[in-house]
């Protein structure tokens, strides 16, 4: 004989029945595009003590959370997007992966900065020296103020980087030029997504980077075609504002050329690098 009265248990039994009812409602064939959310949200209709909260799903299974973009915060990942109301699992997992990759990259980057600040062997007392890779950051602690931490921004930037890396040109480039052989200014370098840049500045860096990568495009037509494209693009860049940093390296100048095919453009760039360098100096101090 159970020591509890029927009344005491009724609460729990009711809960279960209620749950079943919700289930049957949820599992109706639905035309609602928010099916993902309403299906799963019944799980959170209960409070922590097991008692049932008022459930929208019971009343109108189709209407659940149409007003909010993301009905329940942990059914769909919180990212800037592409957030459509109907998320398929494929997209969701890709977004998850992007986010966790970016987080992992950030941890690595932070560690790298720390190591640059406090190199294991010789402790240098740096006072604005530009020895370390990221000299601008080394003066202050590599705290949040110095690096880009906004997840949405990082994800957007990473996507742009991925587009560039997902090209035959990039494949060819990394096969041809191992990392340690890269010469700053000559060889394209992937923009550093963790540095603080304005949106325009960043977009321009990406553009430049991708233009440079074209030098490694697989030979389809003759080289002159490639050259033509490059000249046009560089014309745009020439008109750009001076506050744009062309390169992700603080130590390198704005890229003067991106390959042999740019002999024409090279001359037109002679003036620009100096200006860029000046700006970089002032920014560094």
């Amino acid at each position: 004989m159970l020591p509890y009265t029927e009344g005491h248990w009724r609460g729990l039994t009711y809960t279960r029945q209620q749950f079943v009812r919700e289930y049957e409602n949820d599992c109706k064939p639905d035309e609602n595009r928010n099916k993902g959310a309403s299906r799963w949200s019944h799980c959170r209709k209960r409070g922590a003590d097991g008692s049932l909260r008022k459930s929208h799903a019971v009343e109108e299974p189709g209407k659940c959370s149409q007003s909010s973009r993301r009905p329940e915060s942990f059914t769909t990942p919180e990212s800037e997007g592409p957030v459509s109301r109907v998320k398929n699992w494929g997209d969701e997992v890709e977004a998850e992966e992007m986010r966790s990759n970016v987080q992992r990259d950030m941890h690595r980057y932070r560690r790298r900065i720390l190591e640059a600040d406090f190199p294991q062997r010789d402790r240098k007392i740096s006072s604005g020296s530009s020895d370390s890779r990221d000299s601008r950051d080394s003066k202050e602690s590599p705290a949040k103020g110095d690096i880009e931490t906004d997840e949405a921004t990082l994800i957007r930037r990473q996507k742009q980087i991925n587009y560039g890396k997902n090209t035959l040109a990039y494949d060819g480039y990394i096969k041809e030029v191992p990392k340690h052989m890269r010469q700053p200014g000559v060889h394209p370098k992937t923009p550093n997504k963790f540095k603080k840049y304005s949106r325009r500045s960043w977009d321009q860096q990406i553009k430049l980077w991708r233009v440079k990568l074209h030098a490694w495009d697989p030979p389809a037509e003759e080289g002159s075609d490639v050259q033509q494209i490059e000249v046009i693009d560089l014309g745009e860049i020439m008109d750009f504002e001076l506050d744009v940093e062309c390169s992700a390296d603080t130590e390198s100048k704005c890229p003067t050329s991106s390959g042999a095919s740019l002999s024409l453009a090279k001359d037109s760039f002679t003036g620009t690098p100096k200006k860029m360098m000046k700006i970089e100096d002032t920014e560094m101090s």
Partner: protein
Amino acid sequence: METSSKEEYTIQSFDLETQKLLKTALKDPGSVDLEKVSNVIVDQSLKDQIFSREAGRICYTIVQAEAKQTNGNVFRRNLLNRLQQEFKAREETRKRSTQEWVCLVSFICNIFDYLKVNNMPMMALVHPVYDCLFRLAQSDALKNEEEVDCLVLQLHRIGDQLEKMNLQLMDELFNLLRDGFLLQEDLSSMGHLLLLEILEFRAGGWTLSETAQKYYYSEVTD
């Protein structure tokens, strides 16, 4: 990539042509129609109970192989979207065939177990998996040994991971199981046993004490 013996064993349930397709997918994913491969795998997992519990490993291997070879995730995307379709239709599936339903649950949980994203379980699957388990914990399901068996199997395999992802839901689920164990009149004695074991299992931190292990799993000599 060599097909390990475990994978070999798992794909033996397929016809020879499909076996060949899968083997190629494991070694050279870029050369096959990965959408087709994912469909083949899902279809089989809904029919074959043993496969449904082990297919996760093959899927994982293909995902890794594709990422390495072409940096793509066509296979994973197709697999997940197909799985989502099946998940949405789960209530109909359950009405049509309990066997298919438990296969589906096993498969989803197996995927959850194996397909990790940067060594983390896929968050997108947490709620769907819980949904399936909650469904199995309903009274109309608990009275079927087949469904109880499926439920406790999944909890044994991925219960601790699920709990880490969402403790509250796990608590709620176990409230249902406790209820069912105590109150449900049409539970078979095997059903009772399975539920009691899983209650103890979780209470012990997702492991059985030695005595409990002996109690449940030793041969009883008459």
